[in-house]
């Protein structure tokens, strides 16, 4: 049981990096970015194909990130320059990426058998096998959180946060909100693709379907994190997102143990996220209901 939970945690950390990317678009920019499903797969595809061809696996992951940036840039341009509503712009990129991902991989699946990956590096170095995923995830997660914490405290970072909060105000203060919007989308999708690249190397294959539903998993992680770490400072909120992702993985692992079919997982996740999104509304409704009862009793 310990190892099952431990591997759920490792996976939660890797997907937590993706959730941090979703956090940038969904929470910081206030932009429901469905590019994520496509850019996660794109990251996985690039990283798998390059690793399979013998490219340095770390370099493969970095190039996967650049691919994610391009995807975010595409959505950003569709939204700001062509004035397509955000949701629709990101769906267009996501659909386009399906074709592009198949082109990148050449087939729906790229296995990484006997291929050098970041994970096999550590194995060869004699690192305890069962701790490799956990360790690598932890390093990348810490680096990402540290970078995000620093960046969103800078002048540009503050301008991006203000863009998501009140675009009207920050334009009046001389910020070109098209640029900050695009920048945020590029960064968010870079993290998503980074996570995709890592997950592909960790699971030993890139797959055309690996990103399906990624956005919903990201949202689940963010919401669970917020419920557990509400009203804390930015650093805690970022850690909360990863923590939410870990909790999500543990719950998934447990319900699978209790006999849920793995093909039912997406339904389960959708219901979970719907309930979590309803939670704040339910809370205020209950509060109002109680107030009304108190008044009618008085």
């Amino acid at each position, binding site marked *: 049981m310990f190892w099952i939970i431990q591997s759920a945690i490792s996976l939660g950390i890797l997907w937590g990096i993706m959730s941090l990317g979703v956090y940038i678009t969904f929470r910081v920019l206030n932009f429901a970015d469905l590019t994520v499903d496509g850019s996660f797969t794109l990251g996985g595809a690039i990283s798998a194909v390059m690793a399979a061809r013998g490219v340095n696996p770390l370099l493969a992951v970095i190039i996967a990130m650049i691919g994610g940036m391009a995807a975010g840039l595409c959505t950003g341009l569709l939204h700001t320059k062509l004035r397509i509503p955000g949701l629709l712009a990101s769906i267009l990129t996501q659909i386009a990426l399906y074709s592009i991902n198949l082109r990148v991989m050449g087939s729906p699946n790229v296995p990484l058998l006997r291929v050098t990956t970041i994970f096999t590096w550590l194995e060869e170095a004699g690192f305890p096998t069962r701790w490799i995923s956990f360790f690598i995830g932890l390093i990348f997660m810490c680096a990402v959180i540290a970078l995000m914490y620093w960046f969103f405290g*800078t*002048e*540009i970072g503050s301008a991006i*946060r203000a863009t998501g*909060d009140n675009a009207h105000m920050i334009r*009046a*203060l*001389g910020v070109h909100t098209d640029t900050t919007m695009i920048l945020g989308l590029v960064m968010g999708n870079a993290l998503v693709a980074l996570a995709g690249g890592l997950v592909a190397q960790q699971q030993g294959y890139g797959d055309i379907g690996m990103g399906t539903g990624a956005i919903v998993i990201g949202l689940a992680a963010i919401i669970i994190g917020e419920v557990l770490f509400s009203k804390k400072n930015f650093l805690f909120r970022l850690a909360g997102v990863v923590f939410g992702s870990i909790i999500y993985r543990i719950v998934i692992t447990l319900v699978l143990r209790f006999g849920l079919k793995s093909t039912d997982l997406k339904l389960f996740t959708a219901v979970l996220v719907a309930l979590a999104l309803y939670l704040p509304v339910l809370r205020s409704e209950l509060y109002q209901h109680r107030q009304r009862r108190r008044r009618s009793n008085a």
Partner: protein
Amino acid sequence: MLKMTKISKTFYIGTPNEHQALKNIDLTVNSGDFITVIGGNGAGKSTLLNLIAGVLLPDSGSILLDDRDVTWMPEYKRAGMLGRVFQDPMRGTAGDLGIDENLALAARRGKRRGLSWGTSKSERDKYKEMLKQLDLGLEGRLSAKVKLLSGGQRQALTLMMATLKQPKMLLLDEHTAALDPKTGAKVLSLTEELVAENNLTTMMITHNMRDAIKYGNRLLMLHEGRIIVDISGEDKNKLQVEDLLHLFEQASGSQLDNDRMLLS
């Protein structure tokens, strides 16, 4: 300071709702002017301000700001020259950011933003000092989120943000209209203080005739897209509400039928 020449602006061109908001406006604002702008709904007051700010672009005419042609310059580019406060208190500040962060964003208005800290320690001390003078009890809540503040506090903060980096012009779009009378009066006196202290060239839209008369050195009245009254100096100082009504009737050839302007 500001020179508008033959400015026209029409909304919904080619539809049944076509509406000419400004008709061939000529206006020169001198350095140090504090202009109050008054007029009924749809007179073109906000359109005038939005054209100066670059939120809207004119159909024809030209706008020179400090001898620089800004007619087609996008909003974010001319923001460096303009301080703005809006009618809606929510509009001028970012609610999820702290008071200090909002001020720091405003201190960098029109400057190139880089990777140095968004809010430095030394700025924070400076803001604390400034907020103390504002006397709204905000100096101890420097990192509190702005959404926790009242409308009046937010508007005072926005005013401070608009003048933090000296603007060439301060544009106030009915910035007290959404506040209760007492808070509105407080924000207005703060406005007067800041304008005098920094010798700011100011344009203030108001619905309130008394405020329009009380504040500033020059008064503009707009009606159906035209400037129908433009008085300044001694004539403005002697002005009474009755005179203003009379001027309106003379210039427009109709009775003033705007309750909000008359009653407030």
